[in-house]
């Protein structure tokens, strides 16, 4: 993503950075999605689809366990371009332009080779940081499901590990069990971070 943006002229780049970054800093303005995906026939998506004749009765987007998880993923994607993304954008701007010229002389013929052999190795530290931040955020998704689908979500369709933790920790007050979940979550985060770091180390070789 950040790489694509960096290919553009400077003004447009700054503008697009704002567009993509804005959702993640906006607090819980994501609640607007409850209006878009409202199950009511007056909800935006339903009304539009009914009008176009694609569906003939309103879809219960946020109550039907078939759709909930997809919607939650969609919303968290919308919010996912956070600190890591900014770090990528900044990292890309520091790369020495002469390296690309040198690369062209040495026989790099297209964009993809340029990305793999010059751009990515140059921004490894930022990649590392961005990866860590986004993994951490992704595994910590919990508020979004509660806000969109309620708690617990119908049929536990969008029950994330964080929801599970809150359920046991703060509703059933079984702190021991909740701590056990937290330890597993912690291990999962560390392991996935290590795996990604291993992968990033091999980039460009």
């Amino acid at each position, binding site marked *: 993503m950040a790489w694509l943006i960096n290919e553009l002229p400077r003004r447009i780049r700054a503008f697009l950075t704002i567009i993509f970054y804005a959702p993640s800093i906006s607090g819980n303005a994501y609640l607007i999605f409850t209006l878009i995906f409202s199950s009511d026939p007056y*909800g935006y998506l339903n009304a539009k689809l009914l009008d176009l004749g694609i569906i003939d009765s309103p879809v219960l987007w946020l109550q039907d366990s078939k759709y909930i998880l997809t919607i939650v993923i969609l919303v968290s994607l919308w919010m996912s371009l956070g600190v890591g993304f900014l770090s990528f954008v900044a990292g890309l701007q520091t790369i020495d332009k002469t390296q690309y010229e040198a690369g062209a002389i040495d026989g790099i013929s297209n964009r993809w080779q340029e990305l793999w052999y010059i751009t990515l190795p140059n921004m*490894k530290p930022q990649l590392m940081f961005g990866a860590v931040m986004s993994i951490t955020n992704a595994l910590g998704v919990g508020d979004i499901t509660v806000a969109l689908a309620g708690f617990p979500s119908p049929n536990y369709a969008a029950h994330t590990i*964080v929801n599970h933790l809150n359920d046991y920790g*703060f509703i059933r007050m079984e702190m021991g069990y909740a701590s056990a979940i937290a330890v597993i979550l912690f291990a999962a985060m560390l392991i996935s971070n290590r795996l990604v770091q291993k992968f990033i180390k091999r980039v460009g070789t």
Partner: protein
Amino acid sequence: MATTNLYGPTVQIQKSNFKVKRKKPNPITRFFTDNRSNRSVGGNILLVIFLTFLALLFLFPVIFMFNSAFKPLHELLKIPPDIFVRNPTLDNFYDLRELFSSSLVPLSRYIFNTFLIVIIGTLGQIIFASMAAYPLAKYDFRGNEFISKLIVMSLMFSTAVTAVPNYMIISKLGLIDTYWAIILPSFSSTLGLYLMKNFMEQIPSSLIEAASIDGANEFTTLWLVVMPLVKPAWITLFILSFQTMWGATGGTYIYDEKLKPLSYALSQVASAGIARQGVTAAISLITFLIPVIIYILMQSNVIETMTTSGMKE
């Protein structure tokens, strides 16, 4: 000096005679026709189409929110719905005030709570992060490396992991149902500390030595020499902490209705569903706009800090 002064004026006259206007090529046309690099023009066009599509996808909820906030009732419930507003009104904002004037807690109280939490939390975070980052970045002492590694480790798990011990500590301290339950944990933000430390490492050590020779103690060095130099870092920290504090609902810590922040009020309004969609859009717009405007104003500082955010193995 004297000789150069003699020749100075004549040279200047010549210069003004030969003023050449150079036309700058339009960056957009240059972007599409640039054939020096090894990027194909077809690829460029594809890229623009793809990014436009993505940007629209990201913008759609924002546009929707913006327009719904100004729509009168009959346009909100129109079938088929329009994205864009025809006759913009401020009715939804008045309704918002109306709605809260009849409720137990007025809207202004929620706003006050949020601002109080955000301001104290952010200030505290900046002060603590900079005081912790300064020795870690600039001094060599035993355990420095270990602490730095610990900070990087702590970036790797989210707050959810520590939710249980956090809750227990706060309840043992008797801070449940106070502002401090949200403010105090935010003081120890490791992300802020990490960014601050990386940025401070760029400051030349000679500057700090010079300050100590001139008789400054550690605190004056930090506040008068180092802090002005790391301005982009603490502005970034300000934005990041503002953003997290702004979104805090205080879920498990605050039960007193009078102490809850604005984002909690938003989720309450939103739970009313389609019947109050105009009001929901209005309050969403408020919560959305403030952090975004702050970010736009301080953008370049953030990017500058982020260049130093890289992680070494």
